[in-house]
């Protein structure tokens, strides 16, 4: 896992098709996510962006055609923040159910400081706002060593400054050999080649 060459895909999608409620959302979707890719999935509401990401993550395992081959560990951030209101932000990250890494206390503090939650480490999460909940979840990105990130609407409820920080983080991640697949309705303001996958008109590279 440590010596991955740059050309090897982290994720390969072969002729993926999905139908929901008698409506075809997408079909014959083929793409590969390579290290260094920043892929934005675009489409109107109900176009199947979240469904696609859940299929890519492996949470939806039935009801679609085609094949998804995952070659690397992945980090998935969905609509729900997976932040427990009864735990403090620190506990939420230290005992996170995704079980990717055993983080030290200091790493968690640094990550929380980076998402602007310095001083909130030991405040019960139910005292935090919706945006701060999202930020606790986003702190996982600063801790993560997963090469592949699947982010479903990561900018929801995040303020302007937070969005800029997050965009910077995404670029750092792809520049160090990771890859990002994300859904968002707003265009990324980054100095990096963003690939667009439009679910209505197919892949525009």
């Amino acid at each position, binding site marked *: *896992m*440590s*010596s*991955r*060459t*740059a*050309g090897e895909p982290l994720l390969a999608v072969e002729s993926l098709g999905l139908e929901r409620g008698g409506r075809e959302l997408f079909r014959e979707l083929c793409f590969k996510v*390579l*290290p*260094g*890719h920043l892929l934005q999935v675009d489409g109107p509401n109900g176009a199947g962006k979240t469904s696609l990401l859940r299929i890519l*993550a*492996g*949470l*939806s*395992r*039935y009801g679609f055609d085609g094949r998804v081959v995952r070659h690397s*560990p*992945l980090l*998935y951030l*969905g*609509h*729900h*923040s*997976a*932040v*427990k*209101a*009864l*735990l403090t932000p620190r*506990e939420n990250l*230290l*005992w*996170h*159910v*995704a*079980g*990717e*890494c*055993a983080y030290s206390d200091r790493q968690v503090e640094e990550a929380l400081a980076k998402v602007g939650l310095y001083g909130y480490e030991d405040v019960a999460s139910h005292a935090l706002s919706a945006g701060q909940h999202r930020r606790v979840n986003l702190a996982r990105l600063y801790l993560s*060593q*997963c*090469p592949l990130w699947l982010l479903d609407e990561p900018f929801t409820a995040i303020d302007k400054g937070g969005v800029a920080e997050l965009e910077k983080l995404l670029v750092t991640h*792809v*520049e*160090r*050999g*990771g890859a990002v697949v994300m859904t968002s309705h707003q265009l990324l303001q980054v100095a*990096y*080649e963003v690939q667009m996958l439009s679910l209505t008109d197919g892949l525009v590279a």
Partner: protein
Amino acid sequence: MSSGAPAASTLTQRSPGTLPFCVSLLRRQLTLAARRPIEIGNPLLFFAMVVALFPLGLGPAPDQLAGFAPGILWIIALLSNLLTSDAVFRSDFEDGSLEQLLLAPQPLFMSVLAYIGAHWLTTGLLLALVSPVFALMINLPTQAIPALVASLLLGTAVLSLVGGIGAALTVGLKRGGMLISLLILPFYMPVLIFGSAAVQNAVLGTPATPYLAIIAAMLCLAIALAPLAIAAGLRISVDA
């Protein structure tokens, strides 16, 4: 593109082993339970209430009560377990933690054992520990109390594991309460039969150990098989 993408050598994921992960899950679940003490207290309160009602309903004849006591105590223990098993995965499903758990690199089989373990520690274990008090309330002969505690310790663990299967299957449903009872009550029956038989035999002065051994065997079987079913149930519930 390739110039901007150096080799992925900086990204190496070192996930914790299964055991440390399960320990952290257990700590997480126990902390969560400790911050909602009312939910730990509820089954015990339920137990105390029903035990207090029986003398009123059956009449205050101590001998009669003592005869029914093993069965009564076991039925209440079973019902109070049924009340709580619905909630094992519920809140994790609602806030998205369950999705993350399914994606964890550690085997789901072991992670769900940590969840069930935490559930048992906060329900079955406590119930077994305070059961002597309730036993005295309905006049269970004192020589049967060790058998009662032992059978509850073993039996409630089986109930938690079996209840976990029902909880995993119904977690995606808005009102799974009744369905979960229908699903898992048949599997609760053997535990009830042998659990109350163990106490009954202790009351009569015959050895309770054969019955306890059978419950222990059920527990071994449940530990081996229930997590498989729970893991499969969770995957189905999250998929849907």
